[in-house]
């Protein structure tokens, strides 16, 4: 579609969508169902069920009144693979990168599974159903660790007790075969403090860990003050195996390293190829939390 037609089509957006985006006000958003021009019945039912479920989870969470961190170790049989098609990308320039993990020509892209052998705690269950976690419905630690919906909890609708708290712990994996022509995982936006580099023989991984910060300029238009946020990041990589695991979050570096050291990583025996991935990227934005 050429840009003139695109511009023409975008100019025809429904006035209601334009009006509702005048300012960010999710609390004022009316039900999407009334906006749908030609909605199929099945979708309406799905949305209705989802709304009920979200409401029920939210009410249960608040009624429970718990704001404690629960401890639970994952069961030994639980193994996990990232849903590759959900992995992120961006269109940012290489020059923005502050850190990169690249792969040698000889590398193979091994499929991996992982499970933490040690976790400091789980996300408080009462946060389920609350902004920005309203989409988080599965009660498994894996979803909690890998869901982007957990990140950055200081929105205007967030639970006050957790405002300014970022995700405690996020674990993401990346595969070499996701990239075009020798792409890499990059760290963007964040400014790393001193980077410690090690090799852990037990897991056969190269390790980089550091505290990183990201600065936000003030945006008076949105009453946003200047601020700096930070998190601890541990990057485990096996260049020859073509995989990277990134742990990031607000837990202490000691705890983060403990999680990383106890992470059990297994190669499944399958070698991933370019065709295994629906979407391909020049690089992956490893600064996403």
């Amino acid at each position, binding site marked *: *579609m050429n840009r003139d*037609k695109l511009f023409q089509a975008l100019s025809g*957006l429904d006035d209601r969508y334009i009006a509702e985006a005048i*300012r960010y006000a999710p609390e004022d*958003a009316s039900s*999407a169902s009334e906006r*749908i021009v030609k909605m199929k019945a099945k979708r309406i039912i799905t949305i209705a069920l989802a709304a009920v479920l979200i409401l029920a989870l939210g009410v249960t969470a608040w009624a429970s009144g718990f704001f404690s961190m629960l401890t639970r170790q994952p069961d030994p049989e639980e193994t996990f693979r990232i849903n590759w098609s959900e992995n*992120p990308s961006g*269109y940012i320039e290489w020059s923005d990168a502050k850190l990169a993990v690249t792969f040698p020509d000889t590398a193979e892209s091994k499929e991996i599974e992982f499970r933490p052998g040690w976790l400091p705690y789980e996300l408080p269950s009462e946060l389920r159903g609350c902004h920005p976690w309203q989409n988080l419905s599965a009660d498994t630690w894996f979803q909690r660790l890998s869901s982007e919906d957990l990140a950055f909890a200081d929105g205007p609708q967030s639970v006050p007790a957790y405002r300014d708290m970022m995700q405690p712990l996020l674990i993401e994996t990346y595969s070499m075969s996701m990239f075009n022509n020798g792409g890499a995982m990059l760290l963007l*936006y964040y400014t790393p403090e001193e980077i410690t580099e090690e090799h852990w023989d037990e897991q056969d991984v190269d390790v980089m860990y550091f505290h990183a910060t990201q600065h936000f300029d003030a945006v008076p238009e949105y009453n946003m003050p200047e601020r700096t946020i930070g998190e601890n990041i541990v990057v485990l990589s096996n260049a020859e195996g073509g995989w990277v695991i990134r742990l990031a979050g607000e837990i202490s570096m000691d705890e983060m390293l403990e999680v990383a050291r106890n992470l059990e990583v297994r190669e499944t025996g399958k070698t991933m190829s370019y065709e295994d991935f629906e979407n391909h990227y020049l690089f992956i934005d490893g600064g996403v939390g």
Partner: protein
Amino acid sequence: MEDSQIIDLFFERSERAIDELEAKYGRAVTKTADNILRSRRDAEECANDTWLAVWDSIPPHRPDPLAGYVCRIARNLAVSKLRSETAQKRNGTLDLVLDELEDFLPAGADVEADYDYKETVEGINRFLSTLSYDDRFLFVRRYWYADSVKEIAAAMHERENRVSMRLFRLREKLRKTLQKEGLLA
């Protein structure tokens, strides 16, 4: 003041209507124009033209929602102004957001030949109706208002890279939706 009361003032031909409209939507209208024109002075001029255009069109129109109506007029005026002043010259922000989408919505001979503006508009509106409020806000602010990623991130209390990533996915989702509906090859 409620939108309906402002519209009533227009119907009464009260000059207070423009004052109230400007008080309520002045900032949004100026921002809409400024995003396109990248000139505060031109944007303010465009806002003044918008109030006059609203004055000329209400009555007979009774727009609902009023906010979308005035922002649309401001955007159209800004684009016209931009085109008349820059002719072939590309505008940074507007072209950037169109570039982003164009890369995801490739031209296809068969569909292009049968291009139906109304169907495509309806397709995009249907697509928006399936999104969460946050995703819809993101899409509209970026591709209709031409906001920068930074501004959207600030408005949503999100990180810029997360906003970029979500926009990437939305573009991809839009492409797949339009292809599925036969509106894109």
